[in-house]
């Protein structure tokens, strides 16, 4: 069977909610049935056929072509299957997803992976602010799974992160890992200012020390941490450049955020001569 492919032929004038189009929801549906699925654009209801042409039949391998950043909530609540997005994606990509994989060949807007419980999001371009963060009113951001961003990410990566792994191959904006209570954020490039602001627990692993470390993080010295070997070897599954590096476990450890009695850690690799930064 060929992948079910939706090609955007009519550019939406406002933001379009695609949360209805996930592999598990489309399983077993014919092209005719899919074409009549209602989609919301602003306060107006439309159907899939108003925006997309449909080819293929394998809904477990959903492909979105000509995607753009007005397409919101792609893969929200999905539990299985794969979504490949050729183009950009809007806000709330993979929100609350529980399984499956989303592969974006482009950039994504804010709140990608917010509230996700499981699964895997891979973004070949850049991610907007609040990657894997809690939406306003929520107390927990991402709660499981893995997100890989091959480009850069915006501010507030992993705000209120509860569990899971976020890997940024490029740089991040400010307040990376703010208010996180668990989980792991790895930044291969350089993190902005105020890393770990309000952090309770969890791990932020940096290749490069930030320009400004919050004064509420104390230096615990240099250590060989065995768990880093396991962590880095697990990144092989994520097809990360990290996995290409030899296992390095010597880091400088900073503990905080002491402003909120936090026991989180910011680990900075100390052996920069071995690093493969670009």
């Amino acid at each position, binding site marked *: 069977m060929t992948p079910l492919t939706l090609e955007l032929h009519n550019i939406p004038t406002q933001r379009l909610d695609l949360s209805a189009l996930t592999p598990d929801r489309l399983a077993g549906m014919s092209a005719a049935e899919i074409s009549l699925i209602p989609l919301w654009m602003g306060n107006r209801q439309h159907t899939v056929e108003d925006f997309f042409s449909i080819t293929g039949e394998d809904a477990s391998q959903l492909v979105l072509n000509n995607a753009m950043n007005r397409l919101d909530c792609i893969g929200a609540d999905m539990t299985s299957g794969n979504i490949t997005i050729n183009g950009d994606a809007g806000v709330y990509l993979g929100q609350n997803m529980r399984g499956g994989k989303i592969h974006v060949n482009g950039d994504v807007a804010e709140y990608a992976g917010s509230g996700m419980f499981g699964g895997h999001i891979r973004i070949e371009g850049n991610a907007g602010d609040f990657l894997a963060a809690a939406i306003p009113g929520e107390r927990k951001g991402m709660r499981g799974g893995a997100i890989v961003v091959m480009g850069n990410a915006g501010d507030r990566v992993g705000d209120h992160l509860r569990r899971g792994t976020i890997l940024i191959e490029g740089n991040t904006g400010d307040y990376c890992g703010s208010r996180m209570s*668990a989980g*792991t954020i790895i930044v291969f490039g350089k993190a902005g200012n105020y890393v770990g602001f309000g952090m309770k627990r969890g791990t932020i692993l940096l290749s490069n020390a930030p320009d400004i470390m919050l004064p509420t993080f104390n230096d615990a010295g240099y250590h060989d941490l*065995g768990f880093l070997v*396991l*962590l880095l070897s*697990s990144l092989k599954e994520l097809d990360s450049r990290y996995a290409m590096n030899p296992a390095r476990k010597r880091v400088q450890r900073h503990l905080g955020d002491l402003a909120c009695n936090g*026991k989180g850690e910011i680990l900075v690799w100390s052996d920069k001569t071995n690093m493969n930064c670009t």
Partner: protein
Amino acid sequence: MIINGVEIEDTFAEAFEMTATRVIITAINYKWARHAAVTMTGFATSVIGCGVEAGIERALGGDETPDGRPGISVLLFATSGSTLAKQVTNRVGQCVLTCPTSAIFSGIESDQKIPLGQYIRYFGDGFQISKVIGGKRYWRVPVMDGEFLCEETTSRVKAVGGGNFLVLAKTLSQALLACEAAIDAIGKLPNLIMPFPGGGVRSGSKVGSKYKGLMASTNDAYCPTLRGLTRSELTPDIEAAMEIVIDGLTAEDVRLAMRTGIHAVCALGASQGIKKITAGQYGGKLGQFHFHLREIMNDAAHA
């Protein structure tokens, strides 16, 4: 049946269903990994008095361990899941956590989980850190040389305990030499341990005792010094008997170990004073597994 002049008695070894787990102990080098493993498997010869039967399975290279360091694989056997769980936690807490540079991981997978570091984490007094990596939870417990890394749980599987055979020889030194040859040969096999000191047992037991409360007592039929007083199984030309007990993850593992061990003993042959191979059993009603010696050695002949 006679192999190289050694009689293989027409009897069977009676073994029992047990539950077992494998853990992998790593450290900065083999020396310290072995220290932890030896301590963890100390006082673990028999479930009768130790709660668990445990031993070192083999040494592991850095490419075989989760954290890439040299390691030791340890097998632990018990009669129930709850006993095994309690013993594993106690032994990790007292023998592995305390050993410099050590870490411990599960070395076997099944749906039946038992705690490995699940309770040890409380030693961290609130400073312990949980990490879920590759779907498994690990605990990082701060200790004075850095961090003790342990996997939260290990798995337990059905296993076989008490596979055995007895070597009857003309002299004590000949019996010992034969047992050492068997232990060396069996020690090369995976998935099993010989839990008694050095792998050999000189105090084979029978069920029951004249004393109340003792569930096992000396196997007087094989004690050479009691010949003439009890109903001895030893002929006048036999001066010593020694037993090798084997716990394995499967019946096939035990069978292969018995075959390998008996072969090693028979290779010495009657010329080296080996008279007979027999096995320990309890009437056949207690153990779920019967390993018939002649059947095992016949399989070997046809293999």
